[in-house]
């Protein structure tokens, strides 16, 4: 996995000149770094695999939000609609037909992508606050449908009884969460590789163009809306897979998975990590959930206040997110080397 990611990164670097200079160098390191850090965490924190699994699955979800927001400039507070749809689709498929984890992921991705395409085509003519409102509305509709369709989704009791089959028929999902974590990490790394390919493709560059100046894109003959709808659909696939991954690793899907707080939390994690960088999504998720976990474990009663302080600190001192801080740090070192 690691080597594939590295090769992909290098190949991309050679064939295409970097439009963004320095950022690019970190870009290809990012993915193998995530894989290595993930594997290291597996050995170093064997007791915390439950948390790590949730971080990996959530990071994939935040990554989908980064595609939409960081590369398409689509302001959304309804990304959980795709996550929830994917999670429910995977759960329903597992409970009724086939509980193979890969089938569940495929079902989740398909459902997430479909709902994103359909709702995207309907709402993406709007921009700014109107769009933000519409995305919230879509999230609410999905959640209410899930609540109403109790026979399929279990309503507010949640869809339980999802018992995924062993991965490749070999590795059972055990109580210690070893299979869950490695599976989630593998899916996240593959997701990162694919996302990187997409954002560096002509399509990805066009989407960035739409973000910068939609008028110009139409002037040169492109259709901003269709680019955005396609990007929204692609991100929907990612969100759906992330939802399905959560269904696989936790064995249950609740209404919260399509809820507004989950969309908002993802946005916080993305902004924390840094938008438009892909690996910022991973850093932000790991930082937010890790700190949340440590604080909540040390003081389960008052931790929320500390989280608030931490966020305010980041916004004040690192407005571009943690990733931007790392980049600035990297730039600082390079600057010193140059001078020396």
């Amino acid at each position, binding site marked *: 996995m690691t080597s594939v990611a590295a090769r992909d990164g290098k190949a991309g670097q050679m064939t295409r000149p970097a439009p963004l200079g320095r950022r690019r160098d970190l870009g290809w390191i990012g993915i193998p770094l995530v894989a290595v850090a993930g594997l290291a965490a597996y050995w170093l924190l064997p007791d915390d695999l*439950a948390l790590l699994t949730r971080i990996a699955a959530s990071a994939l979800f935040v990554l989908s939000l980064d595609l939409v927001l960081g590369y398409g400039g689509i302001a959304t507070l309804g990304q959980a609609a795709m996550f929830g749809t994917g999670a429910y689709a995977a759960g329903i498929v597992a409970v009724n037909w086939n509980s193979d984890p890969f089938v569940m992921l495929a079902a989740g991705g398909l459902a997430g992508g479909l709902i994103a395409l359909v709702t995207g085509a309907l709402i993406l003519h709007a921009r700014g606050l109107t769009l933000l409102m519409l995305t919230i509305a879509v999230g609410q509709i999905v959640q209410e449908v899930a*609540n109403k369709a109790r026979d399929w989704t279990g*309503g507010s009791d*949640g869809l339980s009884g999802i018992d995924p089959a062993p991965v490749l028929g070999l590795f059972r999902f055990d109580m210690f969460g070893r299979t869950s974590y490695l599976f989630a990490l593998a899916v996240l790394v593959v997701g990162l590789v694919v996302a990187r390919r997409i954002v560096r493709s002509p399509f990805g560059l066009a989407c960035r163009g739409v973000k910068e100046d939609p008028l110009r894109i139409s002037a040169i003959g492109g259709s901003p809306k269709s680019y955005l709808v396609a990007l929204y659909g692609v991100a929907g696939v990612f969100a759906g897979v992330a939802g399905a991954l959560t269904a696989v690793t936790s064995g249950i899907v609740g209404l919260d998975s399509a809820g507004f707080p989950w969309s908002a939390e993802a946005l916080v994690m993305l902004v924390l990590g840094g938008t438009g960088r892909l690996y910022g999504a991973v850093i932000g998720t790991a930082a937010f959930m890790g700190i949340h976990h440590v604080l909540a474990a040390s003081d*389960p009663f008052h931790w929320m206040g500390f989280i608030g302080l931490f966020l305010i600190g980041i916004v004040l001192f690192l407005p571009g997110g943690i990733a931007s801080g790392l980049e600035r740090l990297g730039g600082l070192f390079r600057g010193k080397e140059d001078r020396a």
Partner: protein
Amino acid sequence: MTRTLRNALLGAAFGLALAAGPAGAATIKVGVVAPFSGPFGVVGKSFKEAIELYQAEHGKTVGNDTVEFVYKDLDQANPAQSKALSQELIVKERVSVLAGYFFTPDALAVAPLIDEANIPCVIFNAATSAITEKSPRYVRTSFTLWQNTVPLAEYMAKQGIKKAISAVSDYGPGIDGEAAFKATFEKHGGTVVDTIRMPLKSADFAPFMQRIKDSGAEAVYAFLPAGPATLAFAKAFNDTGLRAAGIKFFGPGDLTQEPDLPALGDAALGITTTFNYSRAHDSAMNKAFVAKHKEMFGSYDTVTFTSVGAYDGTHVIYQMIKNAGGRIDGAKAVESVKGMSWESPRGPLTIDPDSRHVTQTIYLRTVEKVDGKLENVEKEAFPKQPDYGYKLAK
């Protein structure tokens, strides 16, 4: 190859540590998952206070073993997070018993875990009947919607009410309540003229009040989640003149739980509910319980049904530890408390051997002012009520 080997070694080490842990250690850990922060923080607080109160009364040791409680905050219904926290409690903290759980999905999420780890799970609240069907290692010391609603519907029929209407929030517990009410009330010769399901996020209840008025019902059975929704519903019921028109207001006791009563104010007066516990319950044991609470925490405002749920749950856990003689085996521990009976601040309790849910007295109460404070004053008692919903819902 090496990795498989290492995995196997790691697994073996885990297994050994887990198996050896409780036997060697003199401390038995109990993991409590509940909301300790956010809007439902008061629930976790009442759990923790009840546990501390029980430990103050009965000591922190059972035999040679010290019982230690580990708290994990789960601020909202989030089953994936519930499972992750419970998994951490089992794997990292090596707890012998899991407890707590306020929301149904959070409790359901741990079924595969407790079965694999062979750990008992004592539910302090989550009230959907179906939960205890999902694993033989669940024991529950709270109540279910069916348990509270069946005696209420019977009482209403006995009062000579012929036509009633149900108005519930459109989510799991509300629909449970509606089903229990309709089945029981119609069995006793009444007619349910209409069943209204109100969207969970409704804030304006006037249209529903109109439907209740137009239906010609003599009484309404209502269930909404505790808090602002109930408040708005009760206010609308008064403001639109339904109370003045003589329509009677019934519901399960969640509607008028003690911490909400001050906010409900006089709009709550006269609401008749059935529930398993009222802070105003007239027994020596309850008076001692409330007094001890005030002594330890300075006030008894937070004492409510979640307090006794946790208090009696802790009693069950202590009993499991006592029966096991220091080393808890999930299936055997649950087996050992089946049929167990004891006296609680809420009255006599028995753990039903089939459903592993408490059989208890359900009280009919009316909200009245006692010494300037709103309380649920008990009017009648229906002893030995089981969970009527067990294996009934699909």
